[in-house]
């Protein structure tokens, strides 16, 4: 008798736990056009990355709160290292805030799981037209607009003009005449001979995480391969483990085998001059610029056969289905997208402004400016990370493969394993059906 009561009690516990994993109560209505019912307090989560970003968002929230009386934003800063994990845990336990920022490609999974509210009737047509095409593209899932970034990203090879000139290494002028992979490998060899013991900094110190996918998937894309077959997002087989992918990552592995790569434990390989080339994103620009001034130059990633490719997408804002007021949440995001605010943020973190008008107003990104290459790349050679709810698994599997490869593992075997993981995940989720 008593035993049965216990079993029943346990199943009573089990019931809600199962339900909780699935759909959550959603407010999919979107915006009504005005914030109803006096001052509304909304909570916003932000990844606390670089110090300058942190200071900027804090002052932006203060300025927004002071600028009007309808909406009050409460900002919560969470450590960046495991930010995605924290969001995932909050989504699973129903503890999401009203407003969330998240690393771009996770949007599709959150939207698919109905954690995000569609913002189609929130954003004004003028603002949408003013956004960079890459921002709109990445904020859209299943024909609805779910998220918007105030900046986009840039990825490149940071180096010093003087160092290359001294060794007679060609300096490419833009993505269209990037170094070939062979040329790049040869340059590394030359630089090693010139006294740079470990000429290449790949920011391996960031560790196995989103950086590995963001930073190194352009390698296989430049060779003509990809993370997944983008025609229907149902399989990675024959794409991620194709001959082109294996070949290009074998070249990548050879840089490690030849001892070109600095493991950069203290994050200063390039700044202290141990490395001559640093393969990294826009976020280091301010620090590197301060150290090397006008000698610093940003070059496109090497071309593995099908043209130099680069990553795109950065942190985006979205409104969660847990919010009390979509209008109040949107009011804050809308504020962050004003040119002045966008420029304040991109001035702090070196990222590409998300609006065309802000980009035009910035000398840094205008033609001839030191970071103009990032704008050029976004217009020509940037590849979005796969726009599918399977992204979390794709990125974890690829990261694992990269980690195995840079540690000397068999390239084909590592990629086959990743393909098996990805395809199995898609199948387990019934192909991630789009429900509207």
């Amino acid at each position: 008798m008593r035993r049965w009561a216990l079993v029943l009690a346990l199943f009573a516990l089990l019931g809600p736990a199962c339900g909780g994993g699935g759909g959550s109560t959603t407010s999919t209505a979107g915006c009504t056009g005005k914030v109803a019912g006096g001052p509304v307090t909304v909570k916003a989560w932000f990844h606390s990355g670089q110090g300058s970003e942190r200071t900027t968002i804090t002052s932006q929230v203060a300025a927004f709160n002071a600028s009007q009386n309808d909406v009050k934003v409460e900002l919560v800063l969470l450590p960046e290292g495991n930010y995605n994990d924290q969001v995932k845990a909050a989504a699973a336990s129903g503890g999401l805030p009203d407003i969330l920022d998240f690393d771009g490609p996770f949007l599709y999974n959150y939207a698919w799981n109905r954690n995000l509210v569609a913002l189609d009737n929130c954003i004004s047509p003028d603002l949408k037209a003013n956004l960079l095409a890459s921002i709109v593209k990445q904020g859209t899932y299943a024909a609805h607009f779910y998220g918007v970034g105030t900046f986009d990203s840039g990825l490149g090879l940071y180096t010093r003009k003087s160092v290359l000139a001294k060794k007679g290494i060609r300096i490419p002028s833009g993505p269209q005449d990037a170094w070939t992979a062979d040329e790049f490998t040869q340059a590394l060899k030359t630089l090693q001979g010139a006294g740079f013991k470990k000429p290449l900094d790949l920011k391996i110190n960031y560790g196995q995480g989103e950086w590995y996918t963001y930073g190194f998937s352009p390698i296989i894309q430049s060779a003509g391969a990809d993370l997944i077959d983008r025609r229907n997002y149902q399989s990675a087989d024959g794409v991620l483990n194709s001959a082109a992918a294996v070949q290009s990552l074998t070249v990548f592995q050879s840089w490690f085998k030849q001892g070109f790569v600095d493991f950069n434990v203290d994050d200063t390989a390039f700044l202290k001059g141990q490395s001559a080339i640093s393969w990294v994103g826009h976020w280091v620009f301010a620090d590197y610029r301060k150290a090397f001034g006008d000698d610093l130059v940003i070059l496109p990633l090497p071309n593995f056969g099908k043209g130099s490719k680069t990553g795109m997408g950065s942190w985006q804002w979205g409104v969660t289905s847990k919010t009390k007021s979509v209008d109040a949440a949107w009011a804050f995001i809308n504020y962050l997208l004003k040119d002045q605010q966008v420029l304040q943020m991109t001035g702090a973190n070196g990222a590409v402004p998300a609006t065309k008008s802000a980009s035009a107003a910035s000398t840094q990104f205008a033609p001839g400016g030191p970071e103009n290459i990032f704008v050029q790349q976004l217009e020509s050679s940037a590849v979005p990370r796969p726009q599918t709810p399977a992204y979390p698994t794709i990125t974890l599997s690829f990261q694992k493969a990269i980690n195995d490869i840079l540690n000397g593992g068999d390239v084909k075997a590592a990629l086959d394993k990743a393909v098996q993981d990805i395809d199995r995940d898609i199948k387990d989720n019934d192909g991630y059906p789009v429900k509207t």
Partner: protein
Amino acid sequence: MISSPTKNLKTRVGQDSLVPWLFSLPAILMLLAFLVAPFVLAIVFSFTNLRLLSPIPLRFVGLQNYVRVFQDPIFYRALGNNLLFVVIVVPVQTALALALAVLVNQKLRGVRVFRTIYFAPVVTVMAVAATVWRLLYDPDAGFINGLLGAVSGGAVHPNWLRSTSTAFLAIIIMSIWQGVGFQMVILLAGLQDIPHDHYEAAIVDGASGWQQFRFVTIPQLRNQLLFVVTITTILAFRLFDQVYVMTSGGPLDSTQTLMLMLVDVGFGRQRIAQGSAIAVIFFLIVLSISVAQRRLIREETT
């Protein structure tokens, strides 16, 4: 009024059997809610397709999760590493702890300072200690290679955490350093409990220092040693923090552990169901080893 003594006695007996239950009720409820229920849930989940975040309806998939775990080469790698860790760490750490306990049990001036020093790593947060050790293990700028280089004249230069042949060894060394103080304190308490007249009697019988240690100290420490061995075994199976921080299972899965795999599959890849299957397997392994240990060496009741 005449009271019936037998009735009073009865009610008191009735109360007596209820009161202990009432007192333990909060603890029992907590154990049920936070230990038993989650475990039962894990068993149930392990037969479903449950995912952390997914609108796809729950369904039972039979043994699929278990089959996948047993087909995964990483599982065997992780299990092998856990066993290797236990086989090396349990005896080495226990022996070291005993040696340290005997050392700091001397009646010398300043011995408290040494006790504190040996115990300090235990109270350090593992993640912090692991971060510091990652810097110590740096092949070029780290202290350990600096020391090895100075001693060997540059001949020994292991690439600690980045080489498949040394990464797990590096984890083991660090773990022993971190854990040995805890065992030392338990053994030290045991040492101080040994009545001094045992030693006096041994001396009268003409026992040497080693004989005193072998025939008085060790048998008297039996229960503490048993406890230390059991608890170290269980903790060794739960190896996670230092690996997560220092290598995240790499290079090439050479430092993979069951716990790491569980977190990666269940949380990282959102496959709660398969993670639950790993948890159930993990539980059965640890349980059977603990039971076997208890059978082999029964605790003496003193």
